C-alpha cells in the first residue's frame, strides 16, 4: 500500500539527523522505527531517515488543565485539534537518493532545510531501501539514541512490507549483517536477534 502522508515540517536539521514539528499525532502518523523521507524540492533528492523519538513538548496551558483535573472532552479536543500542540519527531539520517540513481546508505551531502516536508515511506520504498543493509551500521553506531530499539522496530516493519515468501529471507539477511557488525558484542547481538526472529 502507498501512503504519501505528510507528517510535518523540518524544524532544525544537521547532516546526521533532523527534527520535525507537527501539530498532533494523527491515527496514521508514523511510529517509532518507521522509515521516512524528506524530498528536497530543488534538486530531486530524497533524504531517508529513521524515527527514533517522538516528543510531546511541554505547554503551560496543558499543564494547568492537568493540575485542575477537570478534563472535559471538549477542552481536550480543543487542545489537541485547535491549539498548536507542539510535537517533535526526531529522525536519524540513514540514506539519500539523488534523482533516479540508486539509494545510497550513508550521510547526504546536505541536510534538509527548515520547512521541508517529512513523508512516511510506503511499502515499495521500504523494500527498495532495505535491499541493502549498510544502514544498520549507521544506526548501531549512532550515539545518544535508543539505536537497538529503533533498529528492531524498523526491521520488523520492513519485514512486514515484504511478501510472505521473501519475509523470512529478509530477516535472515538482516540477522547475518547484524552478526557481522556485532561480533564483538554477543550480548547485544543476542538481544536484537531474539526480537527480530521470524515467527
Amino acid at each position, binding site marked *: 500500500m502507498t501512503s504519501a502522508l505528510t507528517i510535518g515540517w523540518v524544524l532544525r536539521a544537521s547532516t546526521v539527523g533532523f527534527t520535525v514539528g507537527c501539530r498532533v499525532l494523527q491515527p496514521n502518523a508514523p511510529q517509532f522505527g518507521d522509515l521516512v523521507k524528506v524530498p528536497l524540492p530543488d534538486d530531486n533528492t530524497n533524504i531517508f531517515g529513521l524515527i527514533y523519538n517522538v516528543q510531546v513538548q511541554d505547554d503551560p*496551558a496543558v499543564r*494547568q*488543565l492537568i*493540575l*485542575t483535573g*477537570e478534563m*472535559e*472532552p*471538549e*477542552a481536550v*479536543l*480543543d487542545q489537541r*485539534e*485547535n*491549539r498548536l500542540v507542539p510535537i517533535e519527531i526526531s529522525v536519524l539520517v540513514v540514506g539519500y537518493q539523488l534523482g533516479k540513481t540508486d539509494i545510497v546508505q550513508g550521510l547526504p551531502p546536505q541536510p534538509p532545510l527548515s520547512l521541508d516536508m517529512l513523508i512516511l515511506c510506503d511499502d515499495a520504498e521500504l523494500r527498495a531501501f532495505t535491499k541493502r543493509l549498510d544502514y544498520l551500521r549507521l544506526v548501531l553506531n549512532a550515539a545518544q539514541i535508543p539505536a537497538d530499539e529503533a533498529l528492531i522496530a524498523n526491521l520488523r516493519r520492513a519485514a512486514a512490507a515484504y511478501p510472505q515468501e521473501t519475509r523470512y529471507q529478509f530477516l535472515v539477511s538482516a540477522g547475518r549483517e547484524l552478526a557481522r557488525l556485532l561480533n564483538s558484542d554477543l550480548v547485544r547481538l543476542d538481544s536484537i536477534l531474539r526480537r527480530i526472529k521470524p515467527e
Partner: protein
Amino acid sequence: MTLELNQVAPQVRAMGRSLAEQKPAWDETLQTAQSLLRQYSTQFTALDDRLQHAERVQQSQRFGWVGAAPTGEALAERYALPSCPEQVTVIASDGSQILPDQHAITLYYLINTGSIVYQHGSNRKPETYNPKPLLCFELEDLVDEQGRLISPSEVNVKRDIAEVEVLIDRVNVINHNTTSSIVTLLDGQLTLRVIDLPFDQQQTYQDQYIAKLNTLSESNVLLGGYIDRPRSTFVLALMHLASLEMNSITEENLRLSPFRHLTDRDLFNFLGPGERSAIFSLKAKGLDKYNQAGHTIHFFYLNVSKNETMPHLARVEVPAWVATNSLTLDILHATIVRQARITGSYPYVLARAHELAIISTEEREAVEMMLAIEMRRQGLSPSLSPKQFNKTLLGNRESFKL
C-alpha cells in the same frame, strides 16, 4: 541594568513591614464593614432612603457617587451553586490592538478579535473564529477635523465594539444549530469605557454599542462580563452610605470612605466554592443610556474556586434582562463556574479567546516589516523616529539585562 536593586531592597523590606503592621487595623475595618452588611442585609427601605438622599445631594455637585444598590436579595446571604445544564453553549470573544504610534514608520492602527464557541456536553471540538483583522490607515481613521491623532481610548472603544460584533456574528451562526442555552461572555465590564472621549463621541459610541446589546438581548442569549480579581468597591460604598445618618449624607462625607483600603472582594470573603453574592445594580453617572435601553447593569461576586482554602472571587456583570430572571441567572452562574473549573480559576473560553486575539510582539514586528517592504515598493522611505530608533538600539543591548 539601570534599576539599582540594592537601593530598592530596603524599601521592599519597609513595604513588607508596613503591610504586616497595617493588617490588624485592616482586619478590624473589614469586620465593621461585614457587620454593616449583615445589619442592613434586608433593610432595603433604609438603604433606598439613603440612596435617594445621596442622589439629591450630588445633583447639585460635580461629585458622582458610584456604588451598588440592592435588588431585593439579602445582601449578606450566600447563594449556592445551581446545577448546570448538561448541554450549554458558551461563546466568548476578546480583542487586541496595535495602537497608532507617532514614532513608528507610519501611522496606522490594527484591531484583531478572536472568539470561541464551546458546546458543553456535545463531545465536539470547540469552534474557533478569527474575523479579518482591521487595519486602519486612511486619514479619516487616524485624525479628527482638527488634525488630532486618534486617542488610544478611542481605539480601545472600537475594539470593545468589535468584540461584541464577533459575539453577535457567532450567535447568529450557532442559534440555528443548537437548542441548548447560549451564554455569551466578555472579558471585563459590560459598559463601554468612554469617559476619556469628547462628549459627542461618547454619545455616538454608546449608541452603537447599545444597539449591539439590543441585538444580543433579542437573540435570546445570556450575556455576562467577567472581571477577574476586581478592585471595585461598589458594595463598600453602599455600606459607607448605610453607616451615615441621613443628615450626615453630604458630598464631603461621601468622599471620605473609612473602607478605602478594602475592596468588595474582601467584603465577600465568606463566599464558599461556587457561591455567589446577592445581585446588586450599579449606580453611577453615565449609565442613563443603558438604563433607558433596558440594559441596567447588575453585578454579583462569584467564588469560582472549588477549593475551600483558596477562594477566587470574580465580579460578574449582567444586564437587567439576565439579572431579573432567576432561571437565566442560575444558568449563567453555573456555566461560569463550570468554565472556570476547567482551568482552575478563570473561564476557559475567555482564556482561549484571549489567546486567539492577542497580537504578540513578533506579530506586530511582522506587520511593521510588511508595511516597510510595501512602502519601499511604492517608492516611499519608511523610517522610525530618532527616538524610537535609539530606544530600540539600546533596548536590545543584552549586557544591560539581568
